[in-house]
């Protein structure tokens, strides 16, 4: 076994960290929070220049063949910086779905994403289906698509959306223009921009259907696992910062004539956070590798375990971070509360703890059958 990051990944991580340090401060974040358009032209171009747009995708489909580990390295830094640039929402998420769908139409659209030309979002969730992404409530009846999609993360700017729907018993993935739907845009818990879409007998032509049946299921399932791993990376980046900031605060904040870090209860909190952070890092490394495993069962088990674990421990670290910071921790002025929102958000997007515990149990049962 070898837990050293490949040199290339380390370079990607370092570059991301440096880029964000130089170009994205807490003030940038606060300003971006209030924008309805989260695609900031200069940084977007810079990310393109850094090669991030092609990184997540195989060379065979026009990407640069980066691993999930590489993408996690970037997403971790985006989380650490609280950065709201829609790299995951407009590049990785739709791109992965298109790559997994792997049809001429889908790959053509992926090309345009990699080139930085297309603004595509994924609409795989609706509140009726919840996290059960293989059973969306959107219905394709003949050529007509009807129903709703919720929490479509799009940075406030997507013009195309990939939606999942049931056509009879069959799952289908369809690409359609945003403006074919009724759109309500809003902010999410983590500050990112999203939309609810209402489709009312929207006409769907054959070329808009990217794939269907088992192919669609497999694509959505691989996409889901991939995105779960990215959630963990994002949470890890946030937790790392919360831990560091809290440790620093405990070292310097004075109350009762001494630093609060001299109180044993605070010390033990910090030790618990340190240990938990280590374990979170271990789970991130694990899921960064297994989250794109060819063994579907292993992949599902890994992402389920990681997301379930993060939903407990990562949330716990940020809650304690707030508690130790006291009053200032619950204000918008300090980053701690924003990390808490980010982590809460990421712990709920793509499946909450209970959902992933159910998946973990299922994966264990299947494995017993298979192996």
């Amino acid at each position, binding site marked *: 076994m070898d837990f050293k990051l490949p040199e290339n990944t380390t370079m990607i991580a370092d570059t991301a960290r440096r880029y964000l340090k130089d170009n994205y401060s807490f003030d940038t974040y606060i300003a971006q929070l209030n924008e309805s358009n989260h695609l900031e032209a200069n940084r977007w171009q810079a990310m393109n220049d850094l090669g991030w747009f092609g990184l997540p995708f195989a060379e065979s489909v026009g990407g640069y063949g980066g691993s999930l580990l590489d993408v996690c390295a970037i997403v971790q830094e985006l989380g650490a910086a609280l950065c709201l640039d829609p790299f995951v929402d407009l590049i990785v998420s739709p791109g992965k779905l298109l790559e997994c769908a792997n049809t001429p139409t889908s790959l053509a659209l992926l090309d345009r994403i990699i080139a930085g030309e297309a603004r595509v979002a994924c609409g795989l969730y609706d509140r009726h289906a919840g996290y059960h992404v293989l059973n969306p409530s959107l219905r394709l009846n003949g050529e007509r698509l009807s129903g709703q999609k919720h929490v479509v993360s799009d940075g406030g700017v997507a013009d195309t959306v990939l939606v999942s729907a049931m056509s009879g018993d069959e799952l289908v993935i369809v690409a359609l223009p945003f403006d074919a739907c009724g759109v309500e845009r809003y902010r999410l818990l983590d500050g990112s921009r999203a939309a609810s879409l209402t489709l009312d007998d929207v006409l769907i032509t054959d070329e808009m259907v990217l794939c269907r049946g088992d192919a669609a299921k497999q694509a959505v399932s691989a996409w889901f696992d991939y995105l779960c791993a990215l959630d963990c990376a994002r949470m890890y980046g946030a937790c790392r910062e919360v831990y560091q900031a809290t440790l620093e605060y405990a070292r310097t904040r004075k109350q009762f004539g001494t630093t609060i870090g001299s109180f044993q209860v605070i010390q033990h909190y910090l030790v618990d956070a340190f240990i938990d952070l280590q374990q979170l890092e271990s789970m991130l490394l694990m899921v960064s590798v297994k989250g794109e495993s060819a063994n579907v069962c292993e992949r599902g088990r890994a992402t389920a375990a990681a997301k379930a674990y993060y*939903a407990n421990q990562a949330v716990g670290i940020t809650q304690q971070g707030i508690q130790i910071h006291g009053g200032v921790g619950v*204000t*918008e002025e300090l980053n701690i509360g924003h990390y808490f929102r980010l982590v809460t958000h990421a712990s709920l997007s793509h499946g909450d703890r209970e959902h992933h515990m159910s998946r973990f149990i299922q994966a264990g049962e299947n494995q017993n059958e298979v192996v």
Partner: protein
Amino acid sequence: MNLDFSNEEKEFRKSIRQWMKENVPDDIRRCTARGAMLDKNMQQRWERLLGSQGWLTSTWPEQFGGPGWSATQRYIFDQERASAGAPPTSPFGVAMVGPVLYTFGSEAQKERWLPGIQRGETLWCQGYSEPNAGSDLASLKTRATRNGDHYLVNGQKIWTTQAHWADMMFCLVRTDSTVKQQQGISFLLIDMKTPGLEVRPIYSIDGHHHLNEVYFTDVKVPVENLVGQEGMGWTIAKFLLTHERTTIAGVADIHYEINRLKSAIDALPTETDKQLAVRRLAGLEVDLMALEYTNFRTVAATDEGKPFGPESSGLKIKGTELQQRVSQAMVEIGGLMSLPWDNEEPIGEQIFNQASRRYNFLRACTIYGGSNEIQKNVLAKMLLGL
């Protein structure tokens, strides 16, 4: 031993329930049911409505305008208030400065300030915390210098809830820096409209404006606004900390929250989702029951005239933890439905739409009024006899 309310108390409950049914304004009821925050207008309308009944100051002795209710009646009132979807009232006037005034204030001060509190007309805020005096309150630095018939106040307060709504602040200030920390503190009443007093908002992580910084630059406060003697501030602050509060555990509002959550479970996608949510809720309900019966015991003890012991800190600790756990459960059970932050139309159940804001807001409840860690330190001293 009797776990039921008496017939008189049941009658009382019935009458309060009826009144709530008829009188809680619809907009306020809807706002609470959504889990949203009341604005100043709603909050004040509600408090004035209670004031008009003489119920706002239900904890006050009759001689100062209380309705003469027992602790049990106050408890029942609070239950009915919460289950009718009406908000809790602001503590600063009624539960804090009011008791200080009728205990330590001069006749003139009582006459001047108590009626406004009683009728819900004067809004108060609390000037305690300072940037470098959070948990360590005694180290506060805002100073008041005597200058003829007034004090000149200079310094800064922070975490001042509702300072932007308030007419008046009660404030701990340092009037003597030559004596031991605690002995140099005095208790002043300050008009929020006094020149030199500036209120700056602090936004909380629920996205709302509850808190403020308050800056004092040569703020003139008449000496008749000093409560008690100079140097009595710490005594008054301690009095307030141990002052009886039968609703400190928040049981009534936690009940309301759990019931709201229960009513939304049917909106979850699958049977499994529903079952898991029901089981999680049941765990919270059991813990609430333990808190509730402990609370009942302190209420009954109060009615027997027995002084409050360390139980009251215990209720605060357990109550705030439970509030946080319920709000976290609401967000997590809501799942996707909890993610939107500022949408007009909730996706799914109304209650999940504000759940994450409430969850954020409630992170503060284990911090303010003496963090739970500080509460435990104090309790430990009492238990261990240190």
